[in-house]
């Protein structure tokens, strides 16, 4: 048995066949049982399997994208649950992008941030204010609401404004460390939320606690966008951009600087890394992802108020990052997916099922213990269990391995680098 497993784990061909079979079976399952959440989840699970297969990275990306962007929507679109699945997918995308942003701050740069939702709020309010009549309360010029075509621009504007706020937060934060940093960021998040909730006087900017409603839906080449399935693709697009940025930066000069600062601030400085600039870059880039998704969120909800941006939300995103595996990009995405799907779909379905059982008289539960009320309790238990048994996160971070052979060959071919100008053969190093 073990032998077979090890053989299987060595053979890309067998894996590919198995994987194809898995995708076909689960896709078929979802196609036939449209309302079955489990079929949907099993199909999504294929992405995780794909991650562990021994295939070329590029191939994996293409297959994964194909499944997410084509197979899942296509198969699910046949039934009544389509929009519901797409809504979950959209939320996963939003949270995954935010988690990746927080991962830059916490996972890469090692700065604990408990107020991360503030940037999401900033992005959301930015779009909400200008895409509703709200802006006309204080803007001396312009015609509001702005048309839905501007949404695409606002994704960018949301990112920029959020990153400005990221830098604003960063400046005071640079002097404080560790857990003090946590409380300062927590305070910052709360300040933003309370201010947003109160800015209806003296000048009405955010409409205060009443929130901003009737936000113009985005417009794509004249088609108004309002369904979850449409937002799914917008979110997917942004999400891909975010992944691209994160993975590119992780292995760039900046990414190395972040991790160096995280691992050892003093040695990082001694190696020539400017602390201030590096940390601010982490805050700004992390925040910008949230800002983008904030704009999408406002457009999707068509209504924004401060209740969506509480401290609890910040901790939830942090939970996604830590649960998934700090610093690990696939881990963080998985963490976001697990927490979001649990919260919005699995626990709801679980409690619905229990309610069904008790209405049908299979089990009897007193009203005080109604399963519909248990979602957070179950979530809490799962958090503790996960944390105790997967202490490094679901997919722990691993460093990228460089192809040594290739590097060696290149090094021997390259003309003597500027550093080691004299011939290597002279001393043969120290060996």
């Amino acid at each position, binding site marked *: 048995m073990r032998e077979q497993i090890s053989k299987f784990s060595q053979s890309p061909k067998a894996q590919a066949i198995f994987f194809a079979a898995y995708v076909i079976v689960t896709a078929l399952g979802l196609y036939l049982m449209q309302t079955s959440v489990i079929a949907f989840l099993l199909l999504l699970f294929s992405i995780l399997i794909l991650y562990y297969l021994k295939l070329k990275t590029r191939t994996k990306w293409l297959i994964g994208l194909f499944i997410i962007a084509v197979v899942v929507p296509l198969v699910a679109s046949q039934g009544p649950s389509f929009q519901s699945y797409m809504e979950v997918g959209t939320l996963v995308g939003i949270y995954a992008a935010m988690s990746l942003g927080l991962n830059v701050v*916490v996972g890469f740069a090692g700065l*604990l941030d408990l107020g991360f939702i503030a940037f999401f709020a900033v992005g959301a309010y930015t779009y909400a204010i200008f895409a509703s009549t709200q802006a006309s309360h204080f803007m001396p010029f312009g015609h509001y609401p702005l048309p839905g075509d501007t949404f695409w621009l606002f994704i960018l504007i949301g990112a920029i404004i959020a990153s400005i706020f990221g830098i604003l937060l960063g400046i*005071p934060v640079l*002097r*404080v*460390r560790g*857990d*003090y940093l*946590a*409380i*300062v960021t*927590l*305070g*910052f998040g*709360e*300040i933003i939320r*309370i*201010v947003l*909730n*109160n800015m209806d*006087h*003296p000048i009405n900017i955010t409409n205060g606690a009443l929130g901003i409603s009737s936000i113009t839906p985005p417009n794509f080449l004249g088609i108004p966008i309002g369904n979850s399935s449409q937002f799914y693709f917008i979110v997917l697009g942004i999400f891909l951009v975010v992944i691209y940025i994160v993975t590119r930066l992780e292995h760039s000069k900046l990414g190395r600087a972040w991790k160096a600062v995280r691992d050892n601030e*003093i040695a990082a400085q001694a190696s020539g890394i400017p602390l201030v600039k590096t940390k601010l870059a982490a805050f700004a880039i992390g925040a910008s992802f949230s800002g983008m998704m904030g704009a999408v969120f406002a457009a999707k909800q068509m209504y924004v108020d401060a209740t969506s941006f509480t*401290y609890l939300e910040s*901790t939830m995103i*942090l*939970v996604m990052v*830590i*649960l998934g595996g*700090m610093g690990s990009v696939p881990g963080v995405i998985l963490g976001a997916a697990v927490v979001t799907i649990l919260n919005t779909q699995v626990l709801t379905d679980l409690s619905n099922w229990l309610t069904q059982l008790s209405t049908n008289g299979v089990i009897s539960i*007193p009203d*005080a*213990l109604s399963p519909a*009320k*248990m979602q*957070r*309790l179950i*979530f*809490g*238990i*799962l*958090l*503790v269990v*996960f*944390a*105790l048994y997967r*202490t*490094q996160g679901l997919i722990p971070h691993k460093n990228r391995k460089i192809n040594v052979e290739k590097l060696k060959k290149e090094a021997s071919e390259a003309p003597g680098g500027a550093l080691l100008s004299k011939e290597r053969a002279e001393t043969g190093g120290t060996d």
Partner: protein
Amino acid sequence: MLQQIIQILPQVLVDGLTLGFIYAVVAIGYTLVYGILELINFAHGDVFMTGSFIGAGVLFFLMSIGFLSSVPSLIVFIIVILIAALATGFLGVGIERVAYRPLRRRNAPKLIALITSIGISFILEDVVRFIAELKTGNYIITAPSLFKTQYHLNIHSIMPFFHNVTFQASFLVVLVVTVVMLISLDIFVNRTKWGMAMRAVAQDRETASLMSINVNRVISVTFFIGSALGGATGVLFMIQYGTIDPYIGFILGIKAFTAAVLGGIGNIRGAMLGGILLGLMEMFAAANLSTITHGAMGAEYKDVFAFIILILVLIFKPEGLFGKAVVEKV
């Protein structure tokens, strides 16, 4: 404007002290655990909440057996607060055993304990809610008030620029009990053998273990004390405000944690002063912000005000008001 601020100042002081002392004791729970484990125990606010519910439960039970009418309320109160403190003390020890110690043994990253503490806090909130709802049908509980007598301090006649002050007997109870708790904790930590062991473990866990101190036991004791204080404060909270629900721990927890940081986390006296300061500041802001800003910002900004002060303090004195700067050895 200034006149109005001064007029209500005595009342604001009284109310601010009430809240401040409650923050102070809860803040100590955070600071004790942080001092010894460098862990932000997010569940502590909910231990406080559980304490208030246990207190309410005991009070209702005593009432149902007619104990309340036959015995002076001070004795009832002492019984209630002792039971609640003991129970939450053991709850704290249990939480440490289940959620934190296994992680410590496995050398898990420090942040992962944050997740278990958040999880524990969800669990506590909901378990308390379910029990309360099963028993009473509603989880917002209003406890019978023990100390209702109203006092009027007629300072207006002595100092005419002040308004009079009114408070309830419960205010005195809160004041006396918290002060007693703070002083006895101070004595415990600074004068007793176990207190000394706690300080030793907080300063240098490794070396303390070389001195035949069982570090795990000291940590348990710390959790017991912090949680018992939190639980007892929960009872005081119930006595003072009358109404409790399973979610009181959340906001109060954040505030108390802020207070602990304000005073310099890990520093017990700092936490006390930070708590009192935060309570006073908050009450002052709630009472005067709109007077000061001419209505542009009202009481709803009081938390913003508190957090801005906190951030300013941390920027100019990153180790907190009463903390000691730690110089990193290079």
